[in-house]
């Protein structure tokens, strides 16, 4: 697993290992809201205040940057209009073989198994099937 300890992180999700890569559901891991608007704590155990400090961005197939965060969950997860519910569903998990950039301003470490952080200066690996 990788521990996100810095406020900005850019990397690839999914590593070759002894186990197969599994996608990670962001709303199950970091929390979401139920239909009555109550925060539902995720597997990470982060409180609502803490989880609001995370944004996980990706590039959509159209080439537009798109975030997952609690604000999106709160607005759209249970929206009565189905097309607006799709807004959050188009990016609500970390898929194996995708790039993500993470903004995290909390004080704890975020535990994201299978995420390979990169930054200028270090050759972290190679991509393959």
């Amino acid at each position: 697993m990788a521990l996100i300890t810095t406020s900005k992180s850019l990397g690839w999700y999914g590593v070759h290992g002894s186990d197969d890569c599994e996608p990670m559901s962001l709303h199950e891991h970091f929390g979401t809201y139920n239909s009555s608007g109550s925060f539902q704590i995720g597997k990470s155990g982060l409180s609502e205040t803490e989880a609001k400090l995370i944004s996980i961005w990706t590039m959509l197939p159209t080439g537009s940057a798109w975030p997952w965060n609690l604000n999106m969950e709160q607005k759209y997860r249970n929206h009565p209009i189905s097309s607006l519910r799709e807004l959050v569903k188009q990016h609500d998990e970390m898929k194996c073989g995708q790039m993500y950039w993470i903004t995290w301003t909390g004080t704890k470490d975020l535990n994201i198994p299978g995420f390979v952080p990169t930054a200028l200066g270090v050759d972290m690996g190679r991509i393959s099937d």
Partner: protein
Amino acid sequence: MANINKINGVSGFQGTDFDDCEKISLYGLRNYIDKMFVASPSGSAYNVQPASSANSPFATVKNFECGHAYIFFRAGAESSWSVFNIPHFEQGNITNNNNKLVTTLFPEHFTIEGKGEFHLTSGVNDPGSGSKAWYQTMPVYKTLDSSLKCWYNGSSYVISSRVGNTSSSVLNNSFLPNAPYGDAKTSSATVEVSGFTGGSENANGLYAEVGYVNRKILYRHAKTGDFYYFFNGQTWVLTDTPINVNSGACYVNGEADVNGKLDNSGGSNGNCFDGQTANVSDGSMDPRSLATEDEDSLMSTEDKLKVLITEDDM
């Protein structure tokens, strides 16, 4: 390689393991790319580099470098975009990219006996140490409870309570964080390479697990990080180029099993292990089984065996 379609934003990773990864000039792609973003070594920002000025001596980012992730945006009006190619680049936008994964060149996690389980981090963020993605341009590790950090001091990985602080520290005199620390064993798989001579002698030594390729462990030279031992689908290979034997690689072929002989005794195949042989052992086999009386470089001899097993013992 990746053909970049007519979309505005692209994310991706430079370096695939089936070809010889090379850095690609950002300035050379200035007609296609407006700005490129890469995670800063500070861990708290992204470096933004206009492609049109990437040839400046003051440019922060000049190339797509192997093993790095990038985001970039297209140059010019949408009507002017055309498909272009970035060699060795893998796109990471949400799409069906066949589940491509990273073979890491540093371990993702490991346990050191008596110290605990360490995990790769996105960087240092200690009070007093400030925020950095790397330390001494090497990855930083920590235990889940943050009580211990594992960091590089310029010549060795160090385990201590704080990055940069050597109080009560232990060192492993290694380029890799998961090599043993003295008598403290590592949970990572290791192999020992021995028998190279002359100019190839620096490939001898301990190799530790850093990732997986072709569903087998990828080993890296623990002392220097300069050599890799990997399974190519048929045989094990030792190379200085992650992770292939393409043009320019210094390599020698091994056997179908991780334990065995690296053999280029037959002469020249155009690489720097010409005329060399060596043995590889992961410790699971008796090294005496590698010895034959006909070999020039025996790992054991009948005389040595007598020390262990005498006729009286039989």
